[in-house]
């Protein structure tokens, strides 16, 4: 492999890996606070993509109830992205109230939450299908304004063309990760979140309103899912209501690879899987998805606590 | 000590265990002889339960050997150790809460009363007979610790003291040679403690057991144990008969204080 191809693959991997990372951060935040996996996270990812599509002035097809519908206004991409992510966050908070909180209040088996979140995912996905149909939607080409399609990082003779979208994706991801790291480690809310993650009862004895923080966590989680849904679909396309499901599954692989509930782990795991996939030769691209699960499987057997996790000591 | 035959049953040799950066057990060595009641004391976090966990195979020491009747325990898994006659109770009680008291005792009984799975599965008379036998053995043990009523009730519903006694019955069902009791008197009142003390002596004599016990209640330990080991920060700071330990200046400084 020559150097420019290597670099190109590397940058591609970094770009998609950084989206895996922010998507997985949302997953892992909820896990660290509540010890549950929210299977609807992938559905929110999809929802975010559709929200942005609509807000940026996209028109819907003819299959759903909202056939040919279009918003009367058109927001610039950055605004659409932010608003759509906020909406995704709000939907996730609503989901938490309806599908998770009642179970928590009844002290239900955590397994039930898996089932309940799958039920919620079914609702969201099928609602999307009912409303706007199952067709593929592509963002307009000039969605980012008048930026060039690709930027050459090499020389004229040895081009290393990186799509502008991917640079934007990477940039946005870096900003998000930085903000989140600051929030968790240096703010009062972040410290309270860490306290809840360690022991909810203790947190409430310290005067921390855990219900409110759980709500904040779900909002952030949904926000991150929405933003990553938009980023992925703006660089490829919205491949129908189900396209978040497989992404959700991959996110699961990322967070376990990095260590469940571990924030640097989600980032590292995301980048690792993104890079690993980018280096799969095109002849074997059918096996690309197997990479993440193969890595995951091996990791679970060798180091169940994940790359970045600390060894769990069981208290007797 | 003199009235017992002095044969070692258990030898800890330089046992060491680290958790993270913390030395939980630091090069501890001692020998327990057959038929004695041996006390293990020290503040919480001194490494007592960690030693029990290593003796019962729940964790493996980083260094050192544990010799039990000629075998090295550090190479065995916990179920193998249990099958070889080391039974234990747990500090925080680990009863099978939603199983009945009887079933709790039946589980270890079955380890020694192997039945033919097929006969058992088909409910053949042979299997039923075997089952009756284990039932009556389990009931005897429950009787012994003073639990004969409501044995088909969920273990969860028993009072705290009864649960502690149920754990002892369950441990005895393994037909152990060595019994490890982790804070058996915790949460008992004065009169309950006295009868527990009698029960421990009784089962030692009746089943020809060796007993190691972790306990915080100093008067109980001093009256019950024939020898005592004192741990502090993972180190063995004193070992000997109760009088000796009680007056050891090291123990007074680190643990007992001057009252």
């Amino acid at each position, binding site marked *: 492999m020559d150097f420019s191809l290597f670099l190109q693959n590397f940058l591609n991997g970094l770009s998609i890996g950084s989206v895996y990372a922010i998507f997985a951060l949302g997953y892992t935040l909820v896990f660290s606070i509540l010890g549950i*996996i929210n299977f609807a996270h992938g559905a929110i990812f999809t929802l975010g993509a559709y929200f942005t599509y609509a807000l940026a002035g996209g028109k819907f097809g003819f299959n759903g109830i909202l056939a040919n519908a279009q918003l009367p206004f058109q927001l610039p991409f950055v605004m659409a992205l932010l608003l759509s992510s906020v909406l995704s966050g709000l939907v996730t908070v609503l989901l938490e109230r309806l*599908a998770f909180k009642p*179970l928590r209040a*009844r002290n*239900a*088996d955590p*397994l*039930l*939450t*898996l*089932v*309940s979140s*799958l*039920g*919620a*995912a*079914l*609702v969201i996905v*099928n*609602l999307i299908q*009912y409303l706007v149909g199952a067709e593929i939607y592509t963002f307009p080409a000039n969605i980012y304004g008048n930026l060039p399609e690709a930027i050459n990082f090499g020389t004229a003779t040895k081009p290393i063309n990186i799509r502008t979208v991917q640079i934007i994706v990477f940039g946005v991801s870096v900003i998000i990760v930085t903000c989140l790291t600051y929030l968790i480690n240096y703010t009062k809310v972040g410290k309270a979140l860490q306290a809840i993650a360690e022991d909810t009862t203790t947190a409430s004895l310290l005067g921390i309103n855990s219900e409110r923080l759980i709500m904040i966590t779900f909002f952030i989680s949904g926000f991150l899912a929405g933003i990553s849904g938009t980023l992925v679909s703006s660089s490829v396309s919205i491949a129908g209501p189900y396209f978040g499901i497989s992404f959700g*599954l991959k996110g*699961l692989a990322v967070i376990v690879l990095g260590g469940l509930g571990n924030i640097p782990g989600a980032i590292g795991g995301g980048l690792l899987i993104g890079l690993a996939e980018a280096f799969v030769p095109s002849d074997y691209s*059918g*096996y690309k*998805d*197997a990479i993440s*699960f*193969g890595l*995951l*499987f091996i990791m*679970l*057997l060798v180091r*169940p606590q994940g790359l970045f996790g600390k060894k769990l000591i069981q208290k*007797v | 000590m003199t009235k017992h035959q002095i044969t070692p049953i258990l030898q800890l040799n330089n046992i060491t265990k680290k958790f993270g950066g913390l030395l939980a057990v630091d090069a501890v060595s001692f020998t327990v002889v057959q038929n004695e009641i041996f006390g293990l004391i020290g503040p919480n976090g001194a490494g007592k339960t960690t030693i029990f966990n290593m003796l*019962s*195979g*729940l964790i493996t020491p980083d260094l050192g050997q544990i010799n039990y009747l000629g075998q090295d325990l550090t190479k065995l898994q*916990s*179920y*193998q150790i*249990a099958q070889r006659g080391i*039974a234990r109770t*747990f500090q925080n009680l*680990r*009863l*099978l809460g*939603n199983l009945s008291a009887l*079933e709790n005792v039946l*589980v*270890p009984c*079955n*380890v020694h009363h192997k039945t033919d*799975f097929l006969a*058992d*599965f088909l*409910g053949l008379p042979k299997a039923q007979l075997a089952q009756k036998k284990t039932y009556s053995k389990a009931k005897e043990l429950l009787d012994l610790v003073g639990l004969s009523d409501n044995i088909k009730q969920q273990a969860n519903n028993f009072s705290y003291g009864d649960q502690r006694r149920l754990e002892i019955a*369950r441990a005895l*069902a*393994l037909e152990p040679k060595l019994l490890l009791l982790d804070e058996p008197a915790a949460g008992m009142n004065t009169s309950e403690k006295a009868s527990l003390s009698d029960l421990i002596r009784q089962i030692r004599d009746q089943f020809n057991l060796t007993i190691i016990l972790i306990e915080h209640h100093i008067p109980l330990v001093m009256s019950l144990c024939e020898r005592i080991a004192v741990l502090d920060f993972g180190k063995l700071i004193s070992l000997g008969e109760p009088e000796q330990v009680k007056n050891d200046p090291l123990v007074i400084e680190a643990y007992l204080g001057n009252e």
Partner: protein
Amino acid sequence: MADFFNTYGHLIISTLFGAMLGLSIYLPLMAGQLSLASPGFYSLGGYIAAILSTQFFPRSEGTYPLHFLGVEVILSAILSGILAIALGILVLRLRGIYLAIATIAFGEIIRILALNLEITGGAVGIFGIPQPFDIPLAYLWIAIPLLILVMFLVYRLEKTNVGLALRAIQVDELAANSMGINSTKYKVLAFTLGAILAGIVGTISAHFLNTWNARQGTFDSSIIYLAFVLIGGSKTFVGPVFGGILLTALPEVLREIGNIRLIIFGILIVLGTIFFPQGFITPNLLKKWRK
């Protein structure tokens, strides 16, 4: 009556398969193990049937010989069993959600292999799997006895010492170990039984559905099977049977309401977990019925 069977025959047979898939999740759960490997083994069993019947066994006129189906079932059981033992020894050291995720990863690896290999027909899958019966309804002759047999076996298993050991592990594996129980052995046993069951159901399903592809046994079906158990009731084997039948039938019954049926189905699943946290069928309920 005939009309009823013509309309609902297909559905009834599917629900019986659903019940057995529920039991295949329930079996490892008896030992407290949340394994979601069933879709993987189900898919594997189906491919064994599809490949053998379309590529290896001789084509004959008329219906597919039942003894060939028998050979497929036995072969699926053996292969699933061997694979499950190997996999089980590897993954059953993991606990709780980690085990669930490892078994999901196993299912995904099977799925991606099926999508890419030639022998499994790639993304298209395998078509024209031969029928052993003239009418689809005749599958009842296999599904009903099989379900009854499986239920009886699970019922008896719970009564034995092995059943007691499994329950002990379910409640507290560490305590069970220190009571002399080799928990690994029992966990692998329960896991393997579940895998064999899923494999056999897959084998029969492949014939029943006439076609088999990588969409059989995906990740979300593993959670659906888990829903069979949890919404049906995870404390007695009647629970997953009931849950499997109910949740397989529900989307079909809802077909009348048209496009929003899967939305309603999702809502019902959420409501089911909230209002029946113990599941519909609980041991107490069964006791009441007996009285």
